[in-house]
C-alpha cells in the first residue's frame, strides 16, 4: 500500500471515527439509561444537519453557532419524541420489541417530515456553507479546517460527556437509573427528570454529530440513516453499555471501512462497493463471537489500572 494512500486512509479513519463515536455514544446512552436501541437516532443526526444547514444558509458560517443550533434542535426533537412516543409506551409496559419498532416508526416519521421540508425549501443535496481549507500539509499528510473542527469537537464532547456522567449529580443519577431503575426510583431519584435530561443530551450530541457529518458530506434526509449501520456496529462493539468501548468501536469501524478496505482493494482487488458490508460483518461477528463487545476488555483494563 503506497504511503500516500495509507496516510490518507488513517486521517480518514480518525476523522470519520470521531464522528461515529459522537453518534454512537448517544445510542449507548439511550440503551444504558432508557433500555432502548433507538433507531430514530439516525434522524436526530439528520435533524441536526438540517439545522446546521439552515443556519449556514441564513448567512452565519461560524461553526460554533452552527453546532449550537444543531445541538438545540437535535435535543428538542429527541425530547419531543420521548414525550410523545416512548414515554407513553413505557407507561403501558410494552415489550422491548414494540419499543424497537416504535423507534423505527419515529425515525420514519421524522425522515419523511425532513423530506417534505427539503422539498418545500429546495434543500436537497445542499451543502453547509463552510468552505474547505488546508491548514496543514506535511509530506503526504493533509489536514483541513474540517478535520480540526470535527476531531477536537468530537473529543471535547466525549470528554464533557464522561465528566458529566462521572463528576456531576445528574451523571450519578443517570448511572443509577442505568443500573437499576426500580431502586433509583425508590431512593428518590427524579426518574422522569433524569430521563428528560438524558434525551436532551442524546439528541443534542446526535445533532452536533449531524452538523459535523454535514460538513463532510452533503445534507440530505437520508444521511443519518445511511450512517446508522456503521454507528450501531460501533455501539455493539462497545457492548451497548460501555462508553470507552463505544469510542474504541467507532474507531475500529472507521479503520475497517477505510484503511482495511483500501488495503484489500489495493492488494487483492476487492471492490470498494463492498464497503457498506463491513459494519454488517462486524455486527454479525461480534454477536456470534463476543456479544459483550469490548466491555470486558475495558473492564479488565480498568481493573489492571487499579
Amino acid at each position, binding site marked *: 500500500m503506497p504511503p500516500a494512500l495509507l496516510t490518507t486512509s488513517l486521517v480518514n479513519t480518525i476523522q470519520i471515527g470521531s464522528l461515529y463515536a459522537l453518534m454512537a455514544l448517544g445510542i449507548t446512552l439511550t440503551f444504558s439509561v432508557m433500555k432502548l436501541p433507538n433507531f430514530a437516532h439516525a434522524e436526530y443526526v439528520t435533524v441536526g444537519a438540517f439545522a446546521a444547514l439552515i443556519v449556514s444558509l441564513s448567512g452565519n458560517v461560524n461553526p460554533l453557532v452552527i453546532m449550537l443550533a444543531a445541538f438545540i434542535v437535535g435535543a428538542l426533537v429527541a425530547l419531543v419524541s420521548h414525550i410523545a412516543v416512548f414515554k407513553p409506551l413505557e407507561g403501558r409496559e410494552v415489550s422491548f420489541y414494540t419499543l424497537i419498532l416504535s423507534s423505527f416508526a419515529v425515525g420514519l416519521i421524522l425522515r419523511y417530515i425532513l423530506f417534505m421540508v427539503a*422539498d418545500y425549501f429546495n434543500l436537497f*443535496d445542499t451543502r453547509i456553507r463552510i468552505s474547505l481549507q*488546508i491548514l496543514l500539509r506535511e509530506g503526504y499528510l493533509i489536514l483541513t479546517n474540517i478535520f480540526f473542527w470535527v476531531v477536537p469537537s468530537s473529543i471535547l464532547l466525549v470528554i464533557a460527556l464522561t465528566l458529566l456522567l462521572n463528576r456531576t449529580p445528574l451523571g450519578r443519577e443517570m448511572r443509577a437509573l442505568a443500573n437499576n431503575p426500580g431502586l433509583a426510583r425508590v431512593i428518590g431519584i427524579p426518574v422522569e427528570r433524569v430521563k428528560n435530561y438524558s434525551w436532551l443530551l442524546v439528541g443534542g450530541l446526535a445533532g452536533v454529530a449531524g452538523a459535523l457529518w454535514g460538513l463532510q458530506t*452533503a445534507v440530505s434526509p437520508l444521511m443519518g440513516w445511511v450512517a446508522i449501520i456503521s454507528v450501531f456496529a460501533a455501539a455493539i462493539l462497545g457492548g451497548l453499555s460501555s462508553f470507552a468501548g463505544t469510542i474504541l468501536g467507532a474507531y475500529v469501524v472507521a479503520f475497517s471501512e*477505510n484503511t482495511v478496505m483500501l488495503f484489500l482493494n489495493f492488494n487483492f482487488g476487492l471492490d470498494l*462497493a463492498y*464497503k457498506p458490508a463491513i459494519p454488517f460483518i462486524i455486527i454479525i461477528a461480534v454477536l456470534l463471537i463476543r456479544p459483550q463487545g469490548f466491555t470486558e476488555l475495558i473492564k479488565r483494563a480498568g481493573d489492571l489500572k487499579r
Partner: protein
Amino acid sequence: MFKKVLTAFLILMLIVMLGAATTAQDDMETYVLGVALPFSGNLGTFGQDFARGVELAVSQVNAELDAARSSIRFEIASADTENTPEGASRAVSTVVQTTGAQVFVGPLTTSEVLGAKQFADENGVVIVAPASSGAAGAIPGDNIYRVIYPPDVFASKAYANIALERGHENMVVLHLDDPFGNGMNEGFTANFQAGGGGEVASFAYTPGSTELSSEAAAVSAALAGFGDNAGFFCVCFLSGAQAFLQVAQIDPVLTSVQWMGNEAMTAEEILADQGHAQTLANADFITVSFSSESTPLTQIFIDDFNAMFDKDPGIFTNYAFDAANIAMLTMLAAGNDGAAVKSMLPFIANHYIGTAVQAYLDDNGDQAIASYGLYQVSEDLSAFDEVGAYNGNTDTITYN
C-alpha cells in the same frame, strides 16, 4: 288519487333519469395510465415533478377528448417506486392488480426500469420510461420503451472520444454500482480501448453513499500509479459527486488531472460550493449531456405547467410530459390493451414531436436520435456553458 299518480310519475321519471345516466356512464370508457415514479428517497423531487408533468398531459388530453365528444377519458393511478428496483416492481404490479393499468409512464432510473421489467414483460404491460438511459436497458423485443433520452451507448462513446482527444493514455473511472454506472463504465472502457487507449482502472461505489473519502483515496492512488497523461471520469449521482468533490478538492493528484463526468455533475448545487466549482474549473471538467432542443411546444409546456401548478417545471419534467403524451396517443389508437399498445407505440413515437426533440425509436425501443451538448464550467464559475456538441448518430464532436 292525484297524489298516487304524481308519485308514480315521479318514480317513473327517476327510473328513466337513472337509466339515462347509467347508459351515459356505460358509454364512457376510462383508460388508466399507470405512473410509477420515485416519490420518496433522494430522487423524490424528480419523481413528484415528473408526476406533475404526466398530470398536465392527462388533463390536456382529457380536455381535448371532451371537446371532441369522445367517450374515452384517461385516469392516473400512481405508485411510489422508492427509487429501488424492488420498489419499482412492486409499484407496477400493485397498480396493475388494483386498477388493471396496461401502460405506464416511468420508472425514472435504469435500475428501477430493470426492476419492473420482468413483471411488465410477463404480464404484457408496456412501460414508457422518460429518462432511463443505462445501456443495460437496451433490449430488443421487450415491453420497455425509452422514448426521449437516448441510451448511454452514445454518451459512453462521446466520453471515450474526448479522453482520446485529450491525449489520455490511461483512465481512472469512479462509477455508481448500478446498471447505469456499470453500463457507462463498460461502454467507456470498451470504446476507449478500441480507440487506442490504454488501461482503465474502475472503482465502483454503492448508490446512496454519502461519504466517499476511501474512494477518493483509491482513485488518487490509481492516478498516481498511471503517471502522466492519465485522466479521471466520474459517473455519479449528485450526492455522490458532492461527497467525492468534498475530499477530492484537497487531493494533490486529483487536482492535477483533467476530469470528465456525467450530467448529474452539472447541477447548480455543485456550483453553489465555490471550492467544488473551482475544482471542476481547474480540472478542465467536461460533461456530455443530451441536448433537448426547443420546439414551438417547449414554451407552451412551461406556461401551461406554471398555470396549473404555479411553479416552473423541474429539469427534464417535459420528458415525462412527452412520454405521457406518446403513451396516451398510442392507447387512443390501439385501445387499452398492452399487446396492441406494444405493437403500435413505435409508430406513434416516430411521428411524435413534443417539447424536447423528435422521438425516433431503434430496434431496442430506445430513442435513436442522439444529439448531445458538451458543457464546461464558465469562467466566473456561475454556470455550465455549452462548449460544443456531439452527434451520436455520426459519432462526431464539434467545438464552438
